[in-house]
């Protein structure tokens, strides 16, 4: 019971971006995943990639309102990593999984699908941002992604006042929106 409460607390911390909670989950799960990937034709970099991808999936799941985790954190993380690595191996054309799941796994197909959809959306957004060109890209990134103050941004970019910068920002945003939605709708 206590362990379960602990896990709930960890997930709550994770959703709130608490460094301590993230570190604990990382510490408790990384080595298991790493040995799994190393034992199955992976490198240390692969292990890191896959594990962090799983962490992102867990994080975004923890943040969603409908969040319920029906299994233990390590089972969930392991299942996701396993699935992701299998997929990566298939893409690389060498499907040789040596450990035939002695570990407990859970159904994570739906979660993964969600995660991949989100990944695709982010890719579209990033691509749209990249094709904006400067200074639009940096301006929008500064305001919307890094949450910087408009005054500071105006100063950093050399606008005479914040209003001008704001105007410029809206122009850029309109362009970005157009780029994003064209891509997005094609994608769908």
């Amino acid at each position, binding site marked *: 019971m206590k362990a379960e409460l602990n896990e709930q607390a960890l997930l709550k911390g994770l959703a709130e*971006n608490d*460094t301590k909670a*993230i*570190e604990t989950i*990382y*510490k408790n799960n*990384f*080595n298991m995943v*790493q040995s799994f990937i190393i034992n199955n034709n992976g490198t*240390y970099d692969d292990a*890191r990639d896959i594990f*962090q991808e799983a*962490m*992102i999936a867990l*994080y*975004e799941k923890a*943040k969603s309102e409908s969040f319920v985790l029906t299994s233990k954190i390590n089972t969930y993380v392991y299942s996701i990593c396993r699935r992701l690595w299998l997929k990566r191996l298939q893409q690389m054309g060498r499907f040789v999984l040596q450990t035939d799941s002695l570990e407990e796994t859970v159904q994570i197909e739906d979660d993964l699908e969600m995660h991949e959809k*989100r990944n695709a*959306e*982010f890719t579209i*957004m*990033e691509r749209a941002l990249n094709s904006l060109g400067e200074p639009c890209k940096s301006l*929008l990134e500064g305001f*919307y*992604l*890094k*949450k910087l103050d408009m005054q500071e941004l105006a100063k950093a970019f050399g606008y005479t006042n914040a209003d001008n910068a*704001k*105007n410029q920002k*809206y*122009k850029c*945003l*309109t362009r970005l*929106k157009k780029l*994003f*939605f064209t891509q997005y709708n094609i994608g769908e």
Partner: protein
Amino acid sequence: MEDILLIQAIERYLDGSMLPDEKAYFEQLRKNSPEIDQMVVEHSMFLNQLNALADRQHFKQTLHQTHQKLVNEGVIDEGTIVQTQSKIVSLWHKYKRVTAIAASVAGAIAIITSAIFSYFSPAVNANQIQQLSKDIEVIKRNQQVQGNIINEVKSKLPENARLISGGTGFLIDPKGYLITNAHVLRGSGAIVVNNKGQEFTASIVNIDPKVDLAILKINDKDYKPLKYIPYNIAKNSGDLGEEIFTLGYPRNEIVYTQGYLSAKTGFDGDTLSTQIQMSAYPGNSGGPVLNKKGEVIGILSTRQTHADGITFAIQSKNIYHLVNHLNDSDTASGFSKIKLPARSYIMNNSREEQVKKMEDCVFLVKAYNN
């Protein structure tokens, strides 16, 4: 421009910074105009998307930092490269002194070993070449077998003397000068025995370990000088394929062996000697190598250990060098100059006659220590 104003309004509406009047007006506008309503929904979704992206980028950053931190703390092992390096470094720090001591000890041992090795090893490769002098054990055994114990008792060996090696020697001057190998004379003195078993005391007149030759002088009143020496000493080293023979004492009895000249140089290209094909045994050392004309072309000295019948003889011209050197220096008092035999008397004889005439001139040399 209008678009921008609209977006501005929508953003303000979404983040709740509109005044209540303004908000009510805007909501009314949304209801009446589906286009504006659509724009609001769209923009809201878009902003959510941007925020989510911002969130994810931030989270990725956190993950990255966490990973780095855990690697630094050693919780995560990023492969053996980092580990091995640190392991080796720590091992090195730990065993630096031991390693230094071990290295110097090893160095010292290496130097000492090579010093000992170079000091004790003979000039020629000892493993591949075997000197053909006999050691005492062999001699003793043969003596016992042949029942020569009585002779041994009456031996001219000094009392308490220990025989250490044996070989062959042959006369080069009827006055009693013999030539043999330097390596045969390992002890402090020597006696010579003729083919009839008669012993004579002898002294070493000259010895040259470099060419491996020595000259002995029989100084025994029992010795009766021969009238002449039937063979002569050749100044050239003979021709390849030439038939040769030798007489020697691999046993306590004189033994005849024959073979042919197979190379003009000795072991490893040694120009002082020649290679002959002939089976030779310990005790043959110092024996004369003669061609069919009865000329001494060499002095049997060594054989190759791992090859059958490959024997080496010192070229006879070295006898001239040695004798000339001795005659010129003329140090010893009462030393009469050595006169080397000038011609062969057995040139046209059959081999049996040659051997018969030679037998008296070939002696068994025994070196002893006292």
